[in-house]
């Protein structure tokens, strides 16, 4: 059975850096959305679904009221069999959690909380447009723990405009002070058409100098390692055994069903994309139709590329045998040109697994591009 992702496309208000589809919406929109969501479950999985991992993401799932979260819990009870589930994560925006909501989450089945903290520094919180105060995250963690959510992960951002290494270390230090088992540490990305990017273009904010960003990339690795968290993906760190099982399904390109507005699924080498707009999404389902806006059956070539794109992000890399099986030929022979050069440059290692070195991870996009271009040249893959 595939893993399950459920998307809640609502936020209290839009953050400055975010280009993710989410929307400030009224209570009635949300109620309507939850009904539609159940319709999608019914249409796609009339016999229910029994995922090994569940991820409730957004947007801001905790933007839902306790009442609405309980409604969601009812839906899950009716539609999802959690008997085989080994991990159920919910993204939590610290500013939106209440003890009542925490209880509702636990009732829903959540056993792992991923807190979108981003920074503990009040100035950065403000410049990123986050909605809470400095004291909020600790309270939120305490609430979650009190409700019985034992596994805690935190998201932080670095390479923020004006941020220095000391401030970064300070953030890391605070993040780990909660007995956190897992950290997602993202370098700030300037996405197109976000307020932050416009400020960057107009010169209102100065981007983090590249040298510093590289230093930060190494710093977060070292800092986490010293605290017993290993980098197992470009931006993810965990105590041994505490890796996010759900996200590993993505990176290893397994199968997942994404439900809700804007969610993506990968089922039997097919990408299925739902309507991003929650109204369009609800409209479709109310009319008894699936909310799909795009389906793409991946060709072998695209499967290979997707696998490289995802799995090379992992410390473990990708199993060469799996690539061989996909291509139907020796991958290492086909990509020899690129592999030799990249190995010589100290960016990759290639044994039973093809994986990036620390330096390679830092320039992963270029590494993948090199390999993909060589494969295009040497391999005529079946369509």
């Amino acid at each position, binding site marked *: 059975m595939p893993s399950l*992702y459920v*998307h809640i496309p609502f936020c209290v208000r839009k953050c400055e850096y975010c280009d*993710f589809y989410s929307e400030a919406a009224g209570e009635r929109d949300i109620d309507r959305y939850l009904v539609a969501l159940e319709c999608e479950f019914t249409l796609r999985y009339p016999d229910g679904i029994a995922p090994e991992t569940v*991820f409730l*993401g957004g947007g801001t799932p905790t933007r839902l009221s306790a009442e609405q979260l309980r409604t969601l819990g009812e839906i899950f009870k009716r539609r999802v069999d959690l008997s085989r589930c080994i991990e159920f994560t919910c993204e939590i925006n610290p500013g939106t959690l209440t003890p009542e909501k925490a209880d509702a989450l636990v009732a829903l089945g959540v056993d792992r909380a991923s807190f979108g903290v981003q920074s503990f520094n009040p100035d950065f919180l403000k410049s990123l447009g986050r909605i809470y105060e400095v004291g909020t995250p600790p309270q939120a963690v305490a609430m979650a723990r009190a409700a019985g959510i034992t596994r805690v992960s935190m998201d932080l951002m670095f390479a923020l405009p004006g941020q220095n290494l000391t401030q970064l270390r300070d953030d890391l230090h605070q993040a780990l002070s909660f007995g956190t088992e897992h950290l997602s540490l*993202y*370098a*700030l*990305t300037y996405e197109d058409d976000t307020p932050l990017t416009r400020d960057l273009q107009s010169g209102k904010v100065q981007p983090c100098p*590249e*040298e510093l*960003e*590289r230093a930060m*990339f190494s710093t977060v690795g070292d800092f986490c390692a010293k605290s017993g968290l290993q980098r197992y993906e*470009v*931006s993810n760190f965990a105590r041994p055994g505490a890796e996010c099982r759900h996200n590993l399904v*993505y*990176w290893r*390109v397994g199968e*997942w069903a*994404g439900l809700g507005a804007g*969610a*993506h*699924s*990968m089922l039997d080498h097919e*990408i299925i*994309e739902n309507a991003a707009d929650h109204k369009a999404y609800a409209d479709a389902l109310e009319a008894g139709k699936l909310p799909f806006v*795009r389906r*793409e059956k991946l060709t072998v070539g*695209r499967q290979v*590329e*997707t696998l490289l*794109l*995802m799995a090379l*992000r992992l410390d473990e890399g990708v199993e060469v045998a799996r690539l061989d099986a996909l291509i139907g030929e020796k991958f290492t022979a086909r990509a020899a040109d690129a592999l030799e050069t*990249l190995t010589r*440059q100290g*960016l990759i290692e290639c044994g039973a697994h093809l994986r990036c070195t620390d330096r390679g*991870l*830092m*320039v*992963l*996009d*270029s*590494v*993948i*591009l*090199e390999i*993909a*271009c060589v494969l*295009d040249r040497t391999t005529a893959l079946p369509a």
Partner: protein
Amino acid sequence: MAEYPLSNIRNFSIIAHIDHGKSTLADRLLQSSAAFDQRKLREQTMDSMDLERERGITIKAKAIALPMVIRGENYLFNLIDTPGHVDFGYEVSRAMHACEGALLLVDTTQGIQAQTVANMYQAINADLTVIPLANKVDMVASRYEETVAEMHQVFGIKEEEVIKCSGKTGIGVPEILEAIVDRIPPPKGDRDNPLTALIFDAVYDDYRGVVLYVRIRDGFLEPRQKIAMMATGKEFEVLEVGVARMGLIKQPVLETGCVGYVVCGVKSIQDVGIGDTITLASSKDVVKPLPGYKKPQPMVYAGIYPTQASDFENLRKGLQKLSLSDSSFTYVPEQSGALGHGFRCGYLGLLHMDIVQERLERESGLELVMTAPNVHYEILTPKGEVVKIERAADLPDPSQYEEIREPIVRLNVITPTDSIGDVIKLSLERRGLYQNQEHLGQGRAMLTFKMPLSEIIFDYFDRLKSITHGYGTMDYELIGFEAADLVKVRIMVAAEDVDALAMIVHKQFAESRSRKVLIKLKDEIPRHLFVIALQAAVGGKIIAAERIGSVGKNVTAKCYGGDVSRKRKLLEKQKKGKARMKMIGGVEVPQEAFLSILQVDNED
């Protein structure tokens, strides 16, 4: 068209410095014509090409025939509007061969400028009667008296000869018309002599094929005549004759003294000897050719390459088509290690180059890469042969030649006197040799230098404009080739020669100019996974070097909720970008790098 006796025909061209108002005045004269159709009037009738209208400049000389009624009598004016820009000087000189007179315009807001001087001397050499016009007197900035004084001082023109006019408002136009009748002599010639006609231009017309513009000296031209081109000996049958005026107007016959066109089945404009004489096939052994005029030689050369290698044939077709209507540029196939297959094109100057390239891109829809322009050189081999070198990459090792020579021009600059010092300094820096200075009054002077052409095409004009605050103008003419201390600079990317970037420069500039090219490359070539060395070398010696550091960080931080398409789209985009790169020594060099070298803004 009614028949005009020779005594009632006037052939003249309009000459002036660029933008002094030639085409505007020609439009005015056209409107004064008895045959003028008010309904067909549009702005810039003379500048009929799109590119001319957009740029507001004349590129091709144009002949028009105007029936006129002056003081109650019928006249035929054959007027040739000429371009003012230095690159098209040859258009002016060949127009003059078809005329007895010239209207010399001087913009009174600007006074005499460099091309005014060049054109005036050409007119005098061609024995033309010159009618001096002080133009744009309607403008507030007009300085009529000073301009007249200047014309007197520089050309010895008497004040009473000058007509005060405005092509825009029509002031002085009646006086101009009368002066044309009174001062310009009618053409001489004899209808009963065997035909001689000078070909002074040729254009390609989609319906008629090649159309030759001719000036009849003796005899007449009419359809079905068997004619011969005297230089080539080729024979043709006349299919159509006529005159030009807002389009071509067919006539039964072109009479002695007239200017008009002839269509006679010539296939390609490249086959036309402009300056050649047409006569009757039957009399080709008895008449003497008219004093001819040499085809202009290209002054600058540059490579043109298609962005997509598969467009090479389309590029060839585009060039072929363009050469139908412009016989003054040359093109031969060439090959470059860096750019693949393309053509080396010869142009009359930088503006001409610009125009050809723009027309090519526009008319053929091709995406092109152009190399930096260069002049051509001559080398003297140990055996005493002179070999022409049209691109730097072709220059052999210095041991293979005795000397290398470069084209030298005489350069006239007109400048406000307070910039004289700066102009001299700039010209000397650019290896100019100061020769003469003449004061024009009104705080202006004309300076003359001998100067390597390569320095002029490098950036001289832009620099001149900037140091004279826009007031400086220049004109140059080729006077020969001279030996100089020139070296070939090779540009290397990751230790590999980039032939398209090689350049021939004077030893003293080798280092500074190489450095600029390297810095430009550094800006344009994206960082790679490895460090890239950029080097410039003369012979085996590195004279400048730069490096491009390797990619520092390049990884998408976040991968959103199972959305893999987003990353794949990014990869597709990167793959496309990579496909457009030229590979040099394992380095991907974007096409833009070559273009931007062209735009090295050359502050020494």
